[in-house]
């Protein structure tokens, strides 16, 4: 239950064996390879060491990966077989894998073909857009009946244009009728923004008309089209239809390749593995003939690593040693089955440094409890646990997603527990449905009846959380050998704060509390300024430090969210139940109840899971971690075979 100790591995070998050694490291999949390229840049080594940068090969591979990805995305788009939320990796034996890779030529033909179709589809899409835009721009003009290419006769000119709706069109028409006369204006259409005009005028008045129109915001519209507006719209609609037919044909062609999807997935993963492997050389340093790599392996894989390495067919100098004191190494956490899912909370914040201890065992019980208190409904808890258990069983999600699901499973159990304590089973549904004849009594008490009681308990839970955090701070100081600091900065605060709490509690405890407060305060005044040389400054700083008691109070008040969020879940659940039972228990009433129940509680569960997660995390990050935790460690990322679709069985012989 802690940070796993890592051993440092250094390998020096011949340049010619590099591919084989990298392949071996990838197959073992336990080594986090350190980036040494900085070393080659340093003055000491400049000119001796250099770093290989296979940019050409990588960009070539990236191009291939991109193409394969495009092909795969079309195939999965048109693949109608059932899709699941969490894709599980397909198991594939090593011979099949090799066979597919050896015959990749014919797969490339498919990839290229689909990429060509992709180009074609993109062209079709832009062609479709062009036609649609044309149609949209023509629709307002659809009642114009003169062919658009008829722009003039011997003596007249035909023109089209728009005038902003802000101009008074009646005034303009009467102006023109009065002043220009030899002119015919037809209002074709008008909408909120503009008025669409068709104007026919005698050529002799053209210039005068143009001048007038220009002053009134007229904007000429030129159509570069033949035939009437309606004909054109029909033509473009027809074009779109053809485009769609074309697209369907292409789609049918792509669908023919669906049987190649599985093989393409293998190819995709293969390319990515190659890319990872070739990319890794950028972390190594080399001279002309030899190369060197360094990295970290977890202590439990040292033997297996040595074993495997002794069998490979390459000469190399291998050194495995323990980390030096204060040497930072990649962080891998190891915890029991209950604590492990909670690692995700810390991972989202920051990994611990190597010199720190793993906070997860201490964080887990509090997160577990706070989440349950905030969601606080047994019905919701059971739903949450059942759904996550099903997902874990059926899809076996890995990595962060897997941890998250298991975290939610545990949180569901906590929620169920607190829900039963507070008597919340989908709010008060039983009570509401039976009109109060049957009541599920809370095991402890109902916070809706006595919110103050839960508020006080929230503060008590918060106090325990904060005391634990301070204790961990003391533990950290002691680990660093600062025992006196632990006593001064944590022990004395314990005395003062406990005294204050007892003082508040009243009775005989208050007497003890009074003395503890005084003793604690005096001790703090004497010790908190210990870094100052000047005695007055030292006491001054000590007195000022007492002000920190307020920050403790505000920290405690922060836990009132345990009550507030718990209540809000319960109240909303109760609103939903009230709405659901409004129509009584007749048959339509029951249908309404079912609909409201499913939608309402579904929504309430989701929004409150989010709230409970965010706020339990916040209590950990701000109140808990703030007291002792630094973080900033680098997560352990072994160099291994990373695949998206397939799992290669017996990778050692690959």
């Amino acid at each position, binding site marked *: 239950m802690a940070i796993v100790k890592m051993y440092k591995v250094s390998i020096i070998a011949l340049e010619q064996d590099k591919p084989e050694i990298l392949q071996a490291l990838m197959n073992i999949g336990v080594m986090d390879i350190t980036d040494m390229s900085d070393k080659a840049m340093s003055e000491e080594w400049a000119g001796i060491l250099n770093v290989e940068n296979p940019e050409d090969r990588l960009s070539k591979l990236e191009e291939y990966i991109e193409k394969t990805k495009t092909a795969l995305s079309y195939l999965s788009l048109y693949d109608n077989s059932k899709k699941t939320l969490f894709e599980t990796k397909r198991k594939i034996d090593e011979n099949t894998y090799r066979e597919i890779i050896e015959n990749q030529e014919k797969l490339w033909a498919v990839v290229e073909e689909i990429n060509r179709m992709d180009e074609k589809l993109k062209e079709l899409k832009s062609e479709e857009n062009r036609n649609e835009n044309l149609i949209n721009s023509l629709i307002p003009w659809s009642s114009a009946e003169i062919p658009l290419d008829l722009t003039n006769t011997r003596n007249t000119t035909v023109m089209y244009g728009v005038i902003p709706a802000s101009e008074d069109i009646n005034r303009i028409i009467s102006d023109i009728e009065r002043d220009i006369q030899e002119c015919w204006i037809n209002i074709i259409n008008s909408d909120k923004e503009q008025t669409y005009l068709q104007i026919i005028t005698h050529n002799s008045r053209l210039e005068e008309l143009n001048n007038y129109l220009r002053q009134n915001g007229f904007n000429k519209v030129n159509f570069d089209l033949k035939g009437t507006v309606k004909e054109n719209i029909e033509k473009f609609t027809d074009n779109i239809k053809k485009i769609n037919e074309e697209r369907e044909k292409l789609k049918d062609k792509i669908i023919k390749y669906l049987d190649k999807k599985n093989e393409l997935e293998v190819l995709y993963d293969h390319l990515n593995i190659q890319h990872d492997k070739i990319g890794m050389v950028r972390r190594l340093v080399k001279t002309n003939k030899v190369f060197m790599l360094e990295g970290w392996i977890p202590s439990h894989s040292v033997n297996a690593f040595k074993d495997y390495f002794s069998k490979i067919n390459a000469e190399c100098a291998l050194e495995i040693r323990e980390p030096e004191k204060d040497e930072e190494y990649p962080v891998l956490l190891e915890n029991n089955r209950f604590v492990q899912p909670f690692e995700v909370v810390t991972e989202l*914040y920051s990994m611990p440094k190597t010199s720190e201890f793993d906070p997860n065992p201490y964080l887990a019980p509090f997160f577990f409890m706070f989440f349950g208190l905030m969601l606080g409904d047994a019905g919701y808890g059971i739903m949450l646990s059942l759904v996550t258990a099903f997902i874990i069983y059926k899809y076996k999600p890995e990595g962060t997603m897997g941890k998250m699901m298991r975290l939610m499973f545990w949180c569901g159990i906590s929620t169920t527990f607190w829900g039963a304590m507070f008597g919340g089973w989908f709010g008060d549904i039983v009570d509401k449905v039976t009109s109060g004849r049957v009541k599920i009594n809370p095991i402890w008490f109902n916070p809706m009846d006595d919110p*103050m009681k839960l508020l006080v308990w929230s503060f008590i839970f918060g106090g325990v959380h904060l005391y634990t955090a301070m204790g961990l701070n003391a533990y950290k100081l002691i680990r660093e050998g600062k025992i006196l600091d632990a006593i001064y900065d944590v022990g004395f605060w314990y005395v003062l704060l406990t005294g204050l709490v007892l003082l508040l509690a009243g009775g005989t405890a208050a007497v003890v509390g009074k003395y503890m407060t005084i003793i604690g305060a005096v001790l703090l005044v004497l010790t908190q300024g210990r870094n100052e040389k000047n005695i007055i400054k030292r006491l001054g700083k000590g007195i000022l430090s007492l002000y920190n008691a307020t920050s403790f109070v505000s920290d405690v008040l922060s836990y*009132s969210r345990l009550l507030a969020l718990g209540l*809000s879940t319960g109240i909303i659940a109760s*609103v939903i139940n009230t709405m659901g039972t409004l129509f009584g228990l007749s048959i339509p009433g029951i249908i309404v109840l079912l609909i409201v129940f499913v939608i309402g509680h579904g929504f309430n569960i989701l*929004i409150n899971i989010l709230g409970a997660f965010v*706020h339990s*995390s*916040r209590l950990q990050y701000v109140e808990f971690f703030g007291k002792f935790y630094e973080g900033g460690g680098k997560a352990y990322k072994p160099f291994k075979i990373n695949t998206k679709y397939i799992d290669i069985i017996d990778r050692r012989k690959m």
Partner: protein
Amino acid sequence: MQSLLDLLQYLLDGRFLALLGASFAVIFAGIGSAKAVGMVGEVVAGVVTEEPDKFGKAILLQALPGTQGIYGLIIAFLILFRIGLITGDLKELTTVQGLLFFAASLPIAIVGYKSAIAQGKTAAAGVGIVAKRPNEQAKAVTMAAMVETYAVLALLASVIMVFRISV
């Protein structure tokens, strides 16, 4: 004159004042959340245009400032429950009781409104974090949750007041 006095009497009716309080809680906390969620949504839309994969992470931030609206509803519902509107028999309330309910709604109405918008701004900035460094999402969420604290405190103040007003 007489009708003006009547109107004044209605305005000072305890039930009216209590309902006004309930309405205030929903209206202002709701407007605040709506504005804030909208604000974050615009930024999320921008990010999703470029990187559709980040939708899941970004949408979480958009949901955060939505809670104030819910808190407003909670207080409104509690007031309605206390004055008997939910169960069907509206109780007679004195002007003082009405004013007390109104006063109880103010924390969540005002703090809910302002904190939602402030949280919206923080969350919108947090979407930027998610866009550039998706692994740092938890930090963006925590920052937004810091703002929410004050909405939670206001909710708590309102809840306790509404619970404790005697009718």
